[in-house]
């Protein structure tokens, strides 16, 4: 079992439901962990591992929605599938607002849950690759020298080379050199790509 393999967490206080979902996941050829409460799930959770969470709403202790809130609060980007005995509109809206992949009503139809899990995993994988890219870019940014960093900051403000040179009191040539360096280090093909990445990274950081 490598940690790269997806792990499906099933949280439900009802043993039957729990086992049945676990069985379904297993039948899909995926690994599953069944927890009888949210608290139990939190001890089992491995945030670095791809996967998704399938949780009931009404449970003793922390409810499914509260659990989802907790994950959002802790910035754990695990996709969440909510399964509830009866889907009330306010609850559904709240869950979806908090980023749930879907809200399903018990009992699920045919491949509803199956499809949702697949969808969630795909979304998780996508998110993780995005994250990896971000992290790589961030690392590249961190690798920039202070001088290059200053040039980059001014570029982000939209200043032309001449203006940057004047502001930093260096020659245009130097600025052009530093720009070249920035492009190389961040593995960006052009200015637009560089800027897009920077903005996205700053968005994620904020």
């Amino acid at each position, binding site marked *: 079992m490598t940690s790269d393999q997806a792990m499906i967490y099933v949280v439900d206080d*009802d043993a*039957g*439901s729990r*086992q*049945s*979902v676990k*069985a*379904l996941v*297993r*039948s*899909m*050829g995926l690994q599953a962990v069944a927890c009888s409460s949210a608290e139990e799930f939190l001890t089992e959770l491995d945030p670095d591992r791809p996967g998704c969470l399938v949780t009931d709403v*009404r449970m*003793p202790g922390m409810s499914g929605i509260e659990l989802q809130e907790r994950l959002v609060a802790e910035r754990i980007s695990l996709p969440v599938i909510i*399964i509830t*005995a*009866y889907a009330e509109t306010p609850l559904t809206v709240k869950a979806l607002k908090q980023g749930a992949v879907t809200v399903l009503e*018990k*009992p*699920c*139809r*045919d*491949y509803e*849950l*199956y499809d949702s899990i697949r969808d969630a995993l795909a979304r998780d994988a996508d998110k993780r690759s995005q994250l990896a890219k971000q992290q790589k870019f961030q690392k590249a940014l961190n690798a920039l020298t202070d001088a290059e960093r200053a040039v980059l900051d001014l570029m982000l403000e939209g200043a032309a080379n001449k203006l940057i040179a004047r502001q930093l009191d260096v020659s245009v040539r130097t600025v052009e050199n530093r720009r070249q360096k920035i492009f190389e280090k961040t593995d960006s093909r052009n200015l637009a790509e560089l800027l897009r990445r920077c903005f996205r990274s700053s968005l994620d950081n904020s």
Partner: protein
Amino acid sequence: MSLILLLSVALRVTALTGVLFQWFTSRRVSAALLTMLLVALLGQQIFLFPETSFLALIMDLCVSASLLAFVVSRKPVSRTEGSEGQLPVRKSRLVMTALGMTALAMTGMLVTGWQAYSNSRAAVMDSVAQDSLAVCHSLVMQAERALEDQPPDDQLQDRAIELLARIWKDTQPWHPGSYLCVIDGQGTLALHTMKPEIQGMDVSSIVVDPHAEQPRTISVLLAHRANLATRNTNLGGEQQLCGYGYMASINGLAVVHVPARLVEDRILQTAAPWIVALFVIGGVMFPLSVGLIHVVCRKSEREALLNSQALHRNEQLLRDQFAELDLLYHTAPVGLCLVNTDLRFLRINEELASINGLPVEAHIGRTVQEVLPDIADDIEPIFREVISSGRPRLDLDVVRVDPADPERRCYYLASYFPLTDDDGKVRGIGTLVQDITRRVRAEEKLRLTNFSVDSCSTSIFWIRQDASFFYVNKATSSLLGYTPEELLDMRVWDIDPDYPREVWPDFWQSIEQEKSLNFESLIRHKDGTLVPVEITTNLLEFNGDEFVFAFVTDITDRKRDQRALRESEQRWSFALDGSRDGVWDWNADTGEVFFSRRWKDMLGFTDHEIGSDQDEWESRVHPHDRQRCLNDLQRHLAGITPHYENEYRMQCRDGSWKWFLDRGKVISRSPSNQPLRVIGTHTDITERKLAEQEIRQHRDMLAHVTRISTMGELVAGIAHEVNQPLHAIANFATAAAIALRDAESAAPGNSDLVDELKEWNQGIRDASLRASQIIKRLREFSRKGTRERVAVDINEIVTASIELVAFEARDCEISVETDLASDLPLALADRIQCEQVMVNLLHNACEALANSELPRNILVHTRRCDGMIELQVADNGPGIPPEEHPRLFEPFYTTKSTGMGLGLAISRTIIEDHDGRLWASDNHHLGTTFHFTLPTAVYPGCKEALA
């Protein structure tokens, strides 16, 4: 000539006709005179001028024409024109008249002048001719004398002629232009001093006097030896004046000639100024004088006309005035009459005639005694006195029995005036009579009124605005002990201590508004005792002053009686009034019922609107209640029940229904035990009934809502529970399906079994799905109840909820206290649902306390908490064991022997549905507190409120 004469005569005849016509129409003297003048002129024309000269005829024609013009232009001045008050100004006529007169005068002058002139001229000519003859004689005489001495011979003629010529020469020619001719006996011109060349000419045939009847020639003269003074024409054709003198010595004629032309010239020279003067006088002075006369005549005529008009006007004025006076006399509202000294009526007007009761005609000419026998004896002496003294008697009263009604008397005021002639002698008496019956009667009435007021036994006061007494009657003195004179010096506050000086203006104001007041008061007798009185006041305005007219009646006795009566009644009515109950009193014998005023009042009727029939009650009882009432009543009357008591509805006057508690009892029965009299009371219990009804309705509604939500919660619980296994089934089935698919692809073959398994598996899935749908539909059905979110006052809900459990709490001897925040905002909630939760919590609390020890308390507390409203229901019961806390709100969990265990579950669902929370906590000392929160209603337009 004769034509002109005819024309002239015709003109004069026409003028005469016109004047005659005028004379006949106007009969004026001037016209007659003019006629006479014209007749005279016509006569003159006809008789005196048959052979006048042409010029004279022309003149005459002119005179005739102007006469006609004058007559035609002359028109008589008619009196009617003048009477119009304005004199016609006829200038053209005036001018025409003046012109005519002028022409007439001129013509007259001319004719007269001419006649005078021509007569004078003829005379002068004749005289000159005679002179010539005289001169001729003298010549002849001188010559004869001279020739006496001479012998008659042949030369004698020559010497005579020579002598004559010499004498003529010596003689200063007496007339310029005169000459001497001598004609001898043969008629030959022997000498011509002027024209000697024609001497020797035979002139015997010359006619010497052409104007004589038998014209004589020279030869005739010679033959007759005649002398002649004449006028003739000489051989030269000139007129000359001649004197022919016979000279015997030569048997010839000596002729002295004077040319007529020269004489005429001299006459003309002499007469011319006179003629001019005549013209001037005739042409200017005459018209002027005529004009003047005319103007003067006109003026006087006009004055006369004006005078006549003025006279006419004055006459009219006088007539009008007389008519007015006459009208006044006849229609005057006072009686007027005139009697002569014999006391006979001369005139009398309608008013007095009607007073006397006889027509006007019946008075005239008759004596006073005849007309008015009843009072004649009284008034005749007055008449006689006035006649004898000549002084008027004024304003004498005359009393007479009313002719129309012998029972009544009439009063008159009569004045008598003497009517005197110019000598001051009384010739009649004018009488003026006024009927004052009405006034006298009014005075009598007034006296009667005064008398009755004065001697009336009720005290009467007239009070001025300053509270002084204007008048008091006699009765006041017996009431107050003061004499009327004393009272007139007093003020209201001196006798009535209730109206001191300070409040008097207020009292006056109130009476000015009310006009009439009736009240009781106490007034002070002179001896100091207070007398109870009833005062009736009226505000009266008299002659611009306002008075209070007060009747004061001593009510001492009445007061005493009243007090006694009132005291006894008061006790009874006080009891009734105090209970606010109506009373009825039924006489079973007659069926009549006495309903008290209050009884009727409760139904909205006034006292007189409801009679005393039993039906008045029965008909107003609600049809649904009527039979029951009658049954109950019957049971009591029959003696089955000890008393009658019932609650029923009755219809009020306005159609609404009121609830009454009716209690009655038979208070007397006949010996045969038949009820005789039943008395009962009527209590209005509408409010209580309505309150009960309201609470009942409220409870019913709450129960209904609770049932609905219980069912919803029940179904929701079942659904939740059943959905879990269904979910498991579905998932297992899906897992099995996937496994089957994988197994099939991994190891094909055995396909029949796999297909069959797949089919079964599918069956499982379908069945689980159908089951879940059934449950879903059931849930949807049970959740149909709508809820509304409005702004509600939580404290109000708390109060209402406590009311709903009040009975239960009272039964269990539980005191429910509240601690409600006064500054609580409104909550956004469904009122019924909130009450449901509150009632549920209170009910739980009551049940929890039911078996605990006293004192049993429930405290409901409201407060604000983090933008929400928090309600707490705390009890001091045994409390809930900690291990049971987590499961408190689960459906079907209960600690009680009865109940489904859904109450708290429902409550939580409701509160969570309101975005609030419901939880329980242990009290420090004893018991449990349940809390729940509700969102506040935020105004206005807040999103939350709208959601």
